[in-house]
């Protein structure tokens, strides 16, 4: 069907690139509506305290202040995945993010001034900031809205197992057990949280200009929070300044903004400054991972036993469900006959964790890949050999029931082993101050959506106008990842029209068909398949007329270069002429078509067994580092990435995802940590929270592995999260290799590395 592709597979600049380059793209920060007010939120002064009184009189009296609201003024439901999160807090605060009051005023300055005039009297209490403390029998219940299932402070527990653990333990020749600690990091989207709410008191409808990455789930959530009908809420997504999972949940500031608009009858805008962004937007879960892994004498893996304690913070977000993904890595990355997995998201009075690109997988992969190096060491095996021996393979159905119709794991490993020059480099010792090392990491991630919601589908409408321009109305969302461009490329490929005659509409829930949202690296796969379905329907309308006009059969038509051509005769006709013929002649029909695509994946059963994704993505990375043994500084020199992407759709967008992911993983590995003390954030700014800069970047060598998965569009699989996942593991293995030390936590700060090094000398 796709013998010679015209556009797919060719480097294609983003179709929305020019508008973003010119400063004309409208982000949430840039929206100004007539009569708009500015909102601001008063947050807790102490992480844990009783609120004795709130006095808003002075704030209300400030000229320019239109409204001040507290919990007593609103009739709302709790929000969050476990409905354990009050939008405005009443009687007590349990986290330094807690929202106590909100102001709407005529200017940002007035709103901020008003916050300072709100007087809150607190009775300060001691809190629990360590999940292990929260698990103790005498610990108080941290979230009173939570109905404890197993334990008063366990927000979410997962238990998974396959195989006979004891039998495989007995068969093990070597067993490695370690504890790993993973830090709190945050997304640092360059565009901070922003929302504009516009409530119409006339028709009781609410329009939200929101940066959500899951507009339809968000519409439902916000309706529940505000006790409204979802259909009375319209979500318009302005250009989104970065997502990375941070916009998967709805947070209190969003319904608060809506409430201010409802109270005032005016549009209200809330934009976070950077400090508020660090304070009040979600984080990746901190984790303590206890992992035991075994291998037999030949190096074949035997079992994995893992227990994970995650710091949930004071409320529960989607992030509590990251074990869905983590257990896949433990159960199914490399061949593994037996696995026992338990995880506990534990309430504390820390800031709550959310979802972040990779969804628990960078943490799981870090622990797993560290243990593999340690097992290789104990067995006296080569680190590359042991990975190749245990690699996943096509046709494999794992203990958890994941079925790998295609699998480029082994090929990815072979590629990075070869390209990194590992064989030549591994025996070279660096005698001086600077020590070099190479490390490996693999990864498994869903690559064809993930069936965790009632539908994992996406709807698409395509419509041709009378001049041959195509509008794609897709349920999916562009958050910078380039999916809009991939969709336009697919339509261009299938209909033979140029990219500049294609428009993508994807920002309005009143217009676009349903989609579950941007997550699980699913957009190109799911929205791509949905578009292919819609285009096929469209062609069913166009082809009969074109065949009639060209005096040929429908199956003998080619769509190319704006023409429809009869293969047999070579006669052709402009596509827009056919469209007009259909439109303006009886029986007068528009060239519009719809399609809803649902991936052929399964829901997992209560034991988490089942083939949850339409396809699976694999990758291997090899990283070479140079460590300064005087300072502990780690320089990442080269990163070799081989990733099973199924099929390359847009090489330019693809390598952009790879490079961005690797550098994000590097930040997680080396420099990033949101430091907390007694529930307070110590470094809420870019000066002390260290993101990688241009000066830090390594040479990134990318080798796509094309396994042509028949489930994906043109054979493609999901890409977006994957490149971040193995990077921290591979860097840690490289540092361990360079210095002959153990690395059991991130970030590998110079201080930590130096300490480990000094232990060896």
């Amino acid at each position: 069907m796709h013998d010679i592709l015209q556009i797919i597979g060719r480097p294609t600049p983003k179709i929305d690139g020019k508008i973003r380059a010119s400063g004309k793209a409208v982000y949430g920060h840039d929206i100004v509506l007539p009569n708009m007010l500015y909102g601001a939120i008063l947050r807790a002064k102490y992480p844990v305290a009783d609120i004795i009184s709130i006095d808003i009189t002075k704030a209300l009296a400030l000229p320019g202040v239109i409204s001040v609201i507290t919990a007593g003024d609103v009739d709302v439901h709790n929000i969050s995945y476990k409905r354990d999160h009050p939008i405005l807090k009443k009687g007590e605060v349990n986290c330094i993010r807690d929202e106590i009051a909100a102001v709407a005023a005529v200017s940002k300055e007035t709103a901020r001034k008003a916050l300072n005039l709100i007087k809150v009297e607190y009775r300060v209490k001691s809190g629990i900031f360590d999940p292990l403390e929260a698990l103790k029998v005498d610990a108080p219940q941290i979230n009173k809205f939570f109905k404890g299932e197993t334990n008063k402070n366990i927000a979410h527990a997962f238990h998974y197992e396959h195989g006979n653990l004891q039998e495989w333990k007995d068969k093990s020749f070597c067993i490695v057990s370690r504890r790993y600690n993973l830090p709190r990091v945050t997304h640092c989207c360059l565009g901070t949280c922003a929302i504009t709410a516009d409530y119409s008191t006339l028709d009781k409808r609410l329009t939200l200009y929101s940066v959500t990455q899951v507009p339809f789930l968000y519409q439902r959530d916000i309706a529940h929070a505000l006790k409204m009908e979802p259909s009375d809420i319209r979500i318009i997504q302005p250009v989104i300044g970065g997502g990375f999972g941070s916009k998967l949940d709805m947070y209190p500031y969003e319904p608060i903004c809506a409430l201010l608009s409802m109270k005032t009858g005016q549009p209200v805008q809330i934009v976070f400054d950077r400090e508020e962004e660090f304070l009040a937007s979600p984080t990746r879960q901190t984790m303590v991972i206890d992992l035991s892994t075994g291998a037999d004498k030949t190096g074949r893996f035997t079992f994995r036993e893992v227990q994970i304690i995650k710091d949930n913070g004071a409320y529960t977000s989607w992030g509590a469900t990251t074990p869905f993904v983590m257990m896949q890595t433990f159960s199914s990355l490399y061949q593994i006959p037996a696995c026992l997995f338990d995880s506990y998201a534990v309430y504390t009075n820390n800031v709550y964790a959310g979802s972040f690109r990779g969804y628990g997988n960078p943490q799981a992969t870090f622990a797993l890949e560290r243990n593999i190096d340690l097992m290789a060491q104990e067995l006296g095996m080569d680190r590359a050999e042991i990975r190749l021996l245990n690699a996943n393979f096509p046709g494999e159905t794992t203990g958890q029931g994941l079925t790998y119709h295609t699998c480029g794991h082994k090929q990815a490993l072979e590629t990075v082993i070869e390209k990194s020059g590992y064989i030549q480099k591994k025996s070279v010792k660096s005698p001086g101050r600077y020590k070099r090392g190479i490390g490996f990491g693999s990864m498994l991630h869903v690559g064809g959506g993930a069936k965790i919601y009632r539908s994992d589908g996406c709807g698409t409408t395509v419509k041709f106008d009378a001049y041959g321009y195509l509008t794609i109305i897709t349920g999916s969302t562009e958050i910078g990842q380039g999916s809009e461009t991939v969709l336009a490329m697919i339509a261009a490929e299938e209909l033979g029209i140029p990219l500049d005659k294609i428009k993508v509409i994807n920002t309005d829930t009143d217009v676009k068909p349903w989609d579950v949202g941007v997550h699980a690296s699913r957009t190109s796969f799911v929205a791509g398949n949905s578009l292919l379905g819609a285009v096929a329907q469209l062609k069913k309308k166009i082809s009969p007329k074109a065949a009639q006009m060209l005096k040929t059969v429908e199956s003998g038509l080619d769509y190319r270069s704006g023409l429809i051509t009869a293969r047999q005769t070579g006669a052709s006709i402009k596509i827009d002429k056919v469209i007009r013929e259909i439109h303006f002649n009886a029986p007068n029909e528009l060239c519009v078509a719809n399609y809803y695509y649902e991936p052929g994946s399964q829901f997992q059963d209560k034991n988490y067994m089942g083939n949850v994704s339409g396809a699976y993505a694999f990758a291997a990375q090899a990283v070479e580092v140079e460590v300064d043994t005087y300072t502990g500084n780690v320089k990442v020199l080269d990163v070799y990435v081989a990733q099973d992407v199924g099929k390359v759709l847009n090489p330019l967008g693809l390598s952009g995802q790879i490079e961005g992911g690797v550098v994000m993983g590097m930040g997680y590995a080396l420099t990033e940590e949101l430091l907390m003390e007694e529930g307070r954030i110590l470094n809420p700014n870019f000066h002390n929270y260290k993101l990688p800069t241009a000066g830090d970047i390594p040479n990134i060598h990318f080798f796509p592995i094309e396994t042509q998965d028949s489930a994906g569009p043109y054979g493609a699989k999901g890409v977006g999260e994957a490149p971040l996942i193995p990077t921290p593991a591979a860097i840690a293995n490289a540092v361990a290799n360079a210095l002959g030390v153990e690395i059991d936590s991130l970030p590998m700060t110079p201080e930590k590395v130096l300490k480990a090094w000094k232990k060896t000398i």
Partner: protein
Amino acid sequence: MPNLHTITFTLNGRKLQKTIPASTMLLNFIRDELNLKGAKPGCEEGECGACTVLIDGEPVNSCLYLAVNIDGKEVTTIEGLSLTGDLDPVQNALVQHGGIQCGFCTPGMVMTIKAFHTECRSQNLIPGREQIKKALEGNLCRCTGYTKIVEAVEALFER
């Protein structure tokens, strides 16, 4: 009453006069008073570079620069680079080389590169990769991993 100052300046080639409080920051002045939304508030404390504009050709973090100080000077914002309808070569290079994902850092990145490019050109210098990276260190990007941005800058000098 705030301490008001009348300033005269050139904005993207046009001469303007405005009376503003002494405490107004240039970024707020550009975004809220002049209604040019291209320069972005990424951190408003001089760390991220998303608000970079040119003052007499020099890149500055407009979030830390008092607007009264543009009196008598020439200010170029991102909007000033594509006045003729075509993208500036810097903008075009970023688009063509895939240096833009979410795009929030892009206006500031473009202005930094524009100043760097002009400076190098005036000295007949073709910078190496490390010099380019150094020049971009004040502009944070969370999406691209910088590689394609560096490649775009390299391409600018290859012409």
